[in-house]
């Protein structure tokens, strides 16, 4: 609760003024029927004058204007409060995600993170907006009407002792019966929509296997299922709404029967006008209960959203540099050492992704890593910029444990081109400057040249000012990879890691990129993960990995001579015969 309150705190005036404004409506609604009652009573008593009529009219208009001002003010404050609250919450969740480690990101899928940031925050925003305008109003209206009714005729108010509890039971029934059904409907609807989405993205599969009828059948079943669930949910509401109306109506009938007896007996000075007023209050009380039901239905949905947001905010970020001992230390030589490093993706899983890795990479050397899919190559290099922390052992850079660097310094010193890479909306130059935002045009161009990207970029009409669409979908795979390399090069990193990042670049171009590395990045340590032997052949040192372990280290010739696995890979790529 405290967490949610924190976002309201800066906007407390809005949060207080909003409901207060709404109270003017409550007060107005409580007084209005009384004024009409007075008019009718005075008429019955023969005391009504034109002046009184006009006076009551003026009073009512004045009240209506106050109510209108209150309502507009309420709308103003409620909107202010809810949009500000939501904006702060959204910004907070977003910055929270920015602090996430890779492990945290893997845990929530990106899709679910996006939904939480968008839909779920909006749900809460809507809830606040509604609560601000109705939370006090509905109960306020009920209490005010009840008080007015009791003041007016306490004897007659006894009726409420019966009808309000009955109504409350009905509301409770809706909550108990209806809510679970409504959330079930939502789940089924989501599922139906994802069926469609899947079908549309898989259209070629569906068509090539001629599975249209199969898909239709699947959809029909899901659709019927949705219809049945939503019908049973609606049936609860359809049943309850007449029941509630009936309770209200019964109350009115009873009030009229008892009330008119009281009028006739002059019981407590009851006049016909009082009966009119009283009935108006009956309606108000029961209306407010209907409002409450609506509010509860609505909040049940928002609560689910709040839970999902809470999960993000509460997610412990295990990887940080709070305990770093040498925060001011930058990466200098680029020497890397793994000491008995082990790692599991899931702490309870038996298989280790990395198992007792011992490895020393001298600064400035070029290292190739090769091995089959899933053998742990990517995981190994991810330990260096602390994308993940190892479970056992330690990783040292320049002889210092990576955990003792500040994350900023460590990652600034390491340029990494990820396997699954992303470019962002913006121009090519803007994207490349991610590596170094102060770089001048000449540097940007030179780095692109090293990455063999300058030629094709220059061939674009707008050159480096060409706009990239989201994810860089308007450049080809190979071009994208080269841009990503150029972006990493602009960092002038002490350690450069390429994770299978030239797979879509042909061998000749790749060789040119490697040559540029050799000549221009002499002082930097270069680690290259690759599928093709040709990409790593001329490295100072090649690491062969299998099943989380290093099974061979050496130069190309050494490995070819004494490593079966390496030879096997080599032969698979060159055709064995030659």
């Amino acid at each position, binding site marked *: 609760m405290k967490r949610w309150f924190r976002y309201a705190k800066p906007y407390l005036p809005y949060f207080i003024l909003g409901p207060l404004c709404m109270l003017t*409506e409550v007060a107005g609604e409580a007084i209005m029927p009384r004024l009409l009652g007075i*008019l*009718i009573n005075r*008429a*019955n008593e*023969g005391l*009504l004058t*034109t002046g*009184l*009529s*006009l006076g*009551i*009219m*003026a*009073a009512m208009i004045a009240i*209506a204007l106050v109510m209108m001002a209150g*309502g507009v003010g*309420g709308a103003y404050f*409620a909107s202010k409060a809810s949009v500000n609250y939501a904006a702060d919450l959204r910004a907070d969740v*977003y910055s929270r*995600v920015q602090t996430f480690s890779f492990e945290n*990101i893997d845990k929530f899928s990106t899709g679910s993170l*996006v939904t939480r940031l*968008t839909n779920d925050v909006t749900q809460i925003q809507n809830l606040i907006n509604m609560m601000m305008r109705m939370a006090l109003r509905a109960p306020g209206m009920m209490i005010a009407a009840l008080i007015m009714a009791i003041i007016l005729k306490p004897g007659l108010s006894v009726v409420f002792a019966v009808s309000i509890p009955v109504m409350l039971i009905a509301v409770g029934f809706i909550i108990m019966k209806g809510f679970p059904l409504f959330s079930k409907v939502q789940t089924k609807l989501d599922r139906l929509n994802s069926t469609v989405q*899947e*079908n549309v993205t898989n*259209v*070629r*599969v569906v*068509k*090539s296997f*001629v*599975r249209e009828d199969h898909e*239709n059948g699947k959809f029909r079943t899901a659709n019927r299922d949705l219809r049945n669930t939503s*019908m049973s949910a609606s*049936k609860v509401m359809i*049943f309850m709404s*007449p029941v509630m109306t009936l309770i209200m109506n*019964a109350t009115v009938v009873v009030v009229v029967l008892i009330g*008119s007896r009281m*009028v*006739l007996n002059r019981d407590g000075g009851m006049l*016909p006008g009082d*009966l*009119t007023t009283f009935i108006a209050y009956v309606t108000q009380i029961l209306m407010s209960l209907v409002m409450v039901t609506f509010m509860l239905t609505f909040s049940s949905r928002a609560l689910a959203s709040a839970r999902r947001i809470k999960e993000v905010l509460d997610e412990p970020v295990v990887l940080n540099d709070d305990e770093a001992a040498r925060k001011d230390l930058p990466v200098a030589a680029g020497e890397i050492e793994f000491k008995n490093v082990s790692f599991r993706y899931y702490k309870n899983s038996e298989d280790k992704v990395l198992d007792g890795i011992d490895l020393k990479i001298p600064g400035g050397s070029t290292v190739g890593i090769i091995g*089959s899919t899933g053998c742990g190559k990517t995981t190994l290099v991810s330990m260096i*910029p602390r*994308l993940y922390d190892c479970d056992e052992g330690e990783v040292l850079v320049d002889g210092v444990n990576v955990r003792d660097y500040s994350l900023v310094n460590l990652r600034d010193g*390491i340029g990494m081109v990820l396997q699954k890479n*992303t470019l*962002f909306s913006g121009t090519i130059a803007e994207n490349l400057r991610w590596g170094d935002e102060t770089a001048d045009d000449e540097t940007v161009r030179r780095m692109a040249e090293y990455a063999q990207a300058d030629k094709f970029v220059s061939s674009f009409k707008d050159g480096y000012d060409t706009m990239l*669409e*989201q*994810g860089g979908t308007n450049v080809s795979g*190979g071009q994208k990879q080269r841009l990503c390399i150029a972006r990493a090069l602009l*960092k002038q990193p002490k350690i450069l890691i390429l994770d299978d990042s030239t797979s879509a670049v*042909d061998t*000749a171009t790749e060789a040119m990129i490697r040559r540029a590395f050799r000549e221009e990045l002499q002082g930097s340590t270069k680690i290259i993960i690759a599928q093709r032997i040709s990409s790593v052949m001329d490295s100072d040192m090649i690491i062969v990995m299998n099943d989380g372990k290093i099974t061979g280290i050496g130069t190309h010739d050494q490995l070819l001579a004494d490593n079966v696995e390496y030879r*096997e890979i080599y032969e*698979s790529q060159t055709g064995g015969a030659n």
Partner: protein
Amino acid sequence: MPRNIDQLRKQYNSSASEQRRHGPGGPRGGGPGMRGATGKPKDTKKTLSRLLGYVKGYTGRIIAVLLCMMLSTVTSLIGGYMLAPVINKLSETVAPDLAGNLSLLERAVGDKVSVLSRLVLGDDSVLPFISAAMMILAAVYIVGVATTYVQSRLMLTVTTGIVEKIRNDLFEKLQKLPVRYFDGHPTGEIMSRFTNDIDNIETMLSNSLTSLISGAVTLIGTLVFMITTSWILTLIVVAFFPVFAIGGAKIAGMSRKYYVSQQAALGAVNGYMEETVTGQKVIKVFNHEDECVEEFGLLNNDMRDKQFKAQFWGGVVGPIMGNTSQITLAVTIGVGGILMLGGLLGAGGLTVFSNYARQFSMPINQISQQMATVFAALAGAERVFEVMDTDPEAKDPDGAVDFGDMKGDVRLDDVTFGYVPGKTVLKHISLYAKPGQKIAFVGSTGAGKTTVTNLLNRFYDIDEGKITIDGVDIRDIKRDELRRNIAMVLQDTHLFTGTVMENIRYGRLDATDDEVIEAAKTASAHSFIMRLSDGYNTMLEGDGANLSQGQRQLLNIARAAISKAPILVLDEATSSVDTRTERHIEHGMDRLMKNRTTFVIAHRLSTVRNSNAIMVLEAGEIIERGSHEELLAMKGRYYELYTGKKELD
């Protein structure tokens, strides 16, 4: 350096639907964009009559609904009126000399109640009279509640039934649309037909229809009751009518204007979030978190300001309209008091009149609100029908051949094709594959490799030339038969929500569990499947997000392996499988390709080496063809590619 708000707005605003259009891979057809979920319907009449078509099956029920609705609206009007005779009678008794003039209707109703009272209770003095009035009221209420219930239940069946049918029809139509359609329409756009548009239709059916009709009936009924009670007061109420209409329209216009700009800002925020959350790992590697937070803050604040305006204007409608009707009420009461003094109105009359006056703005608001919903729904329906009206894949011609099993003799004869008229992608392609042969396509991205295979199973129809299988023009073969005979492993690996078993079985629905396992073994997928938490029963969700790209490719191969199609197309089927594993599955692949005519597209030339013939494609033309050795000897383009002298993209 963080960008400023104007740059951000520009870059992320329109991108939401635009960027999805250029999804990875696949040809890009034109197709006019259908953006935005709102907007006005173009041909209301036609759309409406088409929607009515869906109602047809429910005519009986709809009539019953209408009757119930009228009845329940009338009962609620009468219910409101029944207080008049009670208050009048009481006033008469309490202050007989002051009783005002009763309207004709009040007198008539009072008389009726007296008659009933005498009949049932044998007396029409005050208490029996009121009891009788309450008996009538109770009866009216019960009828009202009962009709409301029946009406809602009937309407529920009708609404859900119609919506179910529209959904089914739309989905079935989607299955019939050509691949071309999906090229030109991003998934998000098609999805919004299913979500937004059908939602709007559903809202209209379940709320608007009944609300509109009951609103209209209430409005007319109220007017009638008001006029009979006091025409002077009615005039006052009616005088306020333009205030409601004009004021309502003004405010609605404001809120609509800001709503549009809010949606645009929301689109930018969502686009930015989606991009940066998806690219989160890159952001970490580049220490770019702070810039992102800053840029996001700008977009977020921009949206906040716009949301405020939209919400505020949406929020003032209620209080302004509601209290204007309170003012109407005040004036009627004031004037009513004066009328009572003049003996022109009774206390009962004023009571019920004030109730009606208070409610009078309700049906008006209701109707104007519902009109907005109706327009949104009609616009939605129009878009749904637009999809339904799109030309499906051409029907099989009369006398189309119903091939049993094909042998797999494939010939392309001088085939020319373009996705867009005037832009040829393939030029004069001729080739043949004898049953059981393996033909490979090699060439750079965009050379037309995938296109060739997409023509075989008629994802697209060729413009010129002829493709025959076993000597029959593929346009003369039933399309389903044709596709059943060609198993494809596509470049983009796609899986379905369901178990691993179900996903493989997709290739042949009647395959036994053993056959599925056999196919998985052929594709070398068995061992990793066994390592999954539930083996073959492991649920795959979100397109198999829990599998690696290489594993997904193996499942795709297994899915093709289980089908018994004599023709096999492998489009970059093993691009994400490492070479060593690829080598392991070679045996399986050989078994898979045995006795099948196979077309292979591969980036990695080691994969295509042992083909019977290799076609080197460039800019839509076959520039070299022959076996691996022949091509190498030629020292042409293939030689360049193979020895790595040229780029492959």
